[in-house]
């Protein structure tokens, strides 16, 4: 199943445990609540694998491992399974108990055809790292113009930071602060930070009830919030439950979807009020935006 010849000595005990479980799992029925159409990893993803490694197979294995062995198993997967699908990246993060957040596991950045590099190559005439309205060929920026909508920080020039949504090293202090703080304050991850959420933070941080907070208060409260988030505070499930949710697809769909440049899969779906169905391919010739989501 794995590159057994490459498992390091410390993993042999683990491998010995695994083999009978894997064989048993292949004979057993899927764990209850499992998605019956969970993807089968094509052999092309791991050329030395005779059998397909599927989420249900690994679910059965993981179920039998102690927490310490789960971490080891995560390491093993990370080292020995190089050409793995996206869901395996996420599984490894969960097994190793690493923190959740942008960049972890399958929470990768977007894939886009048009980015800073694209516009910079074409419009930064004087190569100063910024594109002015003149360089773009538009008049002084008007609100709601192309330029204004591209100029995210509203400083009158298009720069790399205006197109950076994901940088691990955000390119400006303002971008860094907005990304980090928003992530921290947005307790329910709905992208909205309310006065209540901020007020609650101030109240918690003001431990000695002075009516104000200091940087020390913030440090202490941020430390607590990080620990709470990673350890399963509030709505964040504990690591154990995260794993079972992961295998049931409740954490994220296990499939990866089409890649940049690939044809968008066609579909026909009815509207919510039972009105006329929409077929995607009928829209060919127009750009189409798809928004996937739910009420909760």
């Amino acid at each position, binding site marked *: 199943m794995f590159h057994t010849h490459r498992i390091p000595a410390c993993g042999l005990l683990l491998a010995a445990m695994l083999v009978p479980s894997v064989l048993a799992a292949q004979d057993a029925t899927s764990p209850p609540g499992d998605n019956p159409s969970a993807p089968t990893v094509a052999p092309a993803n791991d050329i030395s694998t005779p059998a397909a490694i599927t989420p249900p197979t690994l679910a059965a294995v993981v179920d039998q491992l102690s927490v310490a062995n789960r971490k080891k198993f995560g390491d093993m997967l990370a080292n020995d399974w190089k050409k793995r699908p996206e869901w395996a990246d996420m599984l490894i993060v969960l097994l190793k108990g690493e923190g959740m957040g*942008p960049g972890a596991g399958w929470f*990768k950045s977007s894939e886009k055809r048009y980015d800073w590099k694209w516009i910079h190559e074409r419009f930064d005439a004087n190569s100063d790292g910024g594109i002015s309205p003149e360089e773009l060929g538009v008049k002084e920026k008007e609100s709601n113009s192309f330029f204004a909508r591209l100029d995210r920080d509203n400083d009158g020039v298009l720069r790399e930071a205006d197109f950076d949504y994901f940088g691990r090293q955000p390119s400006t202090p303002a971008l860094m602060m907005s990304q980090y703080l928003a992530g921290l304050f947005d307790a329910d991850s709905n992208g909205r930070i309310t006065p209540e959420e901020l007020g609650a933070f101030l109240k918690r941080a003001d431990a000695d009830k002075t009516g104000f907070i200091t940087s020390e208060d913030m440090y202490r409260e941020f430390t607590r919030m990080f620990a709470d988030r990673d350890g399963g505070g509030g*709505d964040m499930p504990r690591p154990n439950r995260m794993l079972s949710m992961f295998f049931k697809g409740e954490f994220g769909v296990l499939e990866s979807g089409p890649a940049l440049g690939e*044809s*968008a899969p066609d579909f026909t779906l009815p509207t919510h009020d039972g009105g006329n169905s929409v077929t995607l*391919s009928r829209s060919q010739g127009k750009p189409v935006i798809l928004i996937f989501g739910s009420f909760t």
Partner: protein
Amino acid sequence: MYAVYIREAHPTDGWKMESNERVGVSIAQPTTQDGRNLVASQCCQALKLTMPLLVDTIDDQVNRAYSGFPDRLYLIDRAGKVAYKGGRGPFGYKPRELEQTLLLMLIDEELSKASADEPADALK
């Protein structure tokens, strides 16, 4: 622009979120197509959506084809190819980024049109 309504991200019988409960959104995962249509209608009304809300099949066909869950944005070009694939939600859900990519795509079309016109001009 189409909204594709998929399986609930935080149903009461799954990863329940207190933040939903607090605002009176308390929904179990629908098990029938009609059930999902009903929840989608509730969502549409509550959020006063004006764009068409397409409802995924109850076996999540389109969700799985696009890896849409819990939420995700796509831009598809005129030829039916993916021009923008947002990162997985919630972290990767960036409408502003999609907007920028669409604008740049339209700029690209202008550029292509302009260079297509040039040979005609040169001949004049």
